[in-house]
């Protein structure tokens, strides 16, 4: 597998555009971008996760909307926990929850199969979390500071990167001579 090293801004904007290209509303796509940053700061190839959830052969848009709604109701205390229905999309769900916890300061936690409870704010590597995750829940504030992520995102698989670019390209308007001449309000040479 070959990889490419992206910046966080690239991870966020590509994940967001990928989600838009897959047909998700802009506001939801914004959260996919935040989720990708959270995951990629914790050892996960987030672009691959987004592509696997939303790519051509996935039926993931509805699952993402469902997961986002579940995280929302968890954050506002209208549900006690979110159970993991779909392990295939589980990492994206964890990313959405992790980003929500970071942005809101809420103490969202992963309940693991062995009974342990791990606050998402303390997760330094999310790549193995999915294996043992049973549910996500909202805990009282424990006053613990957030553990920062890595200085640069986890490496991105180039095949996933290409697939994400393909989905993102669905949001671009095809080139035309008219668009080139009129759309930007400037000529094409500047030799003055």
């Amino acid at each position: 597998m070959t990889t490419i090293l992206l910046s966080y801004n690239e991870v966020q904007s590509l994940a967001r555009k990928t989600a838009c290209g897959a047909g998700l509303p802009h506001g939801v796509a914004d959260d996919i971008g935040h989720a990708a940053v959270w995951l990629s700061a914790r050892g996960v190839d987030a672009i691959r996760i987004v592509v696997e959830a939303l790519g051509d052969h996935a039926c993931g848009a509805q699952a993402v909307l469902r997961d986002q709604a579940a995280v929302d109701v968890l954050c506002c205390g209208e549900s006690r926990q979110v159970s993991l229905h779909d392990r295939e999309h589980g990492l994206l769900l964890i990313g959405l929850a992790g980003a929500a916890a970071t942005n809101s300061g809420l103490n969202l936690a992963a309940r693991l199969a062995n009974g342990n409870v791990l606050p998402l704010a303390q997760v330094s590597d999310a790549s193995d979390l999915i294996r043992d995750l049973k549910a996500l829940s909202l805990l009282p504030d424990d006053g613990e500071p957030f553990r920062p992520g890595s200085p640069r995102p986890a490496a991105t698989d180039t095949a996933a990167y290409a697939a994400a670019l393909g989905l993102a390209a669905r949001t671009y308007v095809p080139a035309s001579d008219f668009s080139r001449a009129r759309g930007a309000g400037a000529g094409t040479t500047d030799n003055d």
Partner: protein
Amino acid sequence: MTIRALDLATGPALALRSPDVVMRLRRMGASFPTRLSFLRSLIRRLAASSTSVRRPVWEMDDAGFGHAVYTLTLGGYDYSLVAFSCPLPDDQRSDRVIAEAWDTSYVLYDGVPDAAEIDRLRANAPRQEAGRFGPRDLVLSRANKSVRFFEHVADSLAHGRQPDRQRLGEVGYLLRTTAVYGNGKFGIADRFVLAARGGLDGPFQAEMLTVWLIREFSHDLVEHVARCRAPDTFVPLAQGLRRHIGVGNSTGLGMAPFLANHPVLLSNWVLARETALARMRAKPCLDAAALGRLADLWRQAALHLDQWSVEDDALMARILRLRGEWIEAESWIDPARLLATSFPVASLLDRSQSLSVDFQELLAALLIELAGREIDDLADGMAAAREGAFEPGMRIMVLRKLLHDHYGWAMAIAFEAPAETAQFWYVSEEKLEPRLGRRADEPGADLELPLDIARQVQRLAVDLADAPDGQSVAAFLADFPQHRHVVRRIQTTAAAPYAEIRDNLLSDRCLPIDMLRCKLAFFGASKFDPRSDRWTRITLFQGAPTAGEIAAGETDDCWLPVLP
């Protein structure tokens, strides 16, 4: 009808102008640089640090092609501009994003690059968007020559003459940047790296530092070419003229989505400026020294207006009117009269309401300049750590109230009229260039960018009408996920008074140039020179200290440059 620029409800003590006045496109399009502009902050910081610029590498052939490195220390960190200069055929010289080659290219590097790092950058910087960069690369930029003026200066210096003052005044720069990329683009360092460092933590400080060093490079490059051309007759640029040669910039539609997509950041910028103005407005009197300074600044602005001419008919007409108003209003600042006036700044601002918006905004910028150091603290609050958090637990009745309280301007737009949706913003697949289309004539409206804030607000209001007061936003969005973007925005902007451009960006009347000028004025740009309603050239750092002068701090020409 004259619009009153004060929201009297905020009281006379620190009366901020209302967002309904300030955040209109027409007024944003009359923005002038101020003491709080980002390049001004950078100059003050460089001066306070007694920064000295070194040039450890200069490897140029006689025609001025090669590379150079400029290094300085700021806030305990070394930064280097690595500059590359290459031959460029005329048919490839374009200011557009769709260009694929440039006269010069740059990276602001974190530290001092060794030979291997310079080789890496040489392989990538000239390719710009097609290259790949890493965490030590902080800013990526490129610039094209102002071809005729560069040649004129080189030829003049080679023959022992200084360049023609009038041409220098008309152009004002040797190189014109066509992009200055920061914050993680193409693999470079993310903004948070710099946000944690003293020195470059303010908005666009790394980008401004890059441009300031590019200006230094442009001076050195033209002198190098002239010296190589005729070493026996060559003379260097006279210091006064050197200082008046800034850096050009060509800017298109990309700046407009930036403002719309960073509402909290935009609010912070405007709030700092408006607070500075309100502090001045609240002054009960001005002493004789301040009145003398006011007169000096007034004359400087008049000279600047006289030296600012553009080909764009609409802007030139506005400049001509402004010149006339400025001369007529000079009697307002008669010292004897102002000394006898209580709240003299408030008096000037109130009188200005009868004149053009251009006059009002130039006067506001002048009064902020008059404030001097006493408003410099406001520059520290202009960055935004983040664009606000989403609150899924908010009750619908609260969201409705926020919409009602802050988005009346949006609800008043009649979107059923075709003119109100005449335009759409999009990203072209051609190098992802941001563009603006006519909905009735062009394909692509189904892919438009979500800059239709007012229309989104209205659509949300329709669906909110039937939602129970006590329902949570989380429950509402589970049924209406398409509103998530605008709900988050309404929640976010409730505490950011100047977050929204209070006009319809889809309207037939929307002129993107107004947004461009607003953002560029915050950068510190002057000599706005529109090439269309969506494209402009500007000048940065004209009149500002050169590297050799930076320790002395700001010059008198930092606000509005005047050719000596």
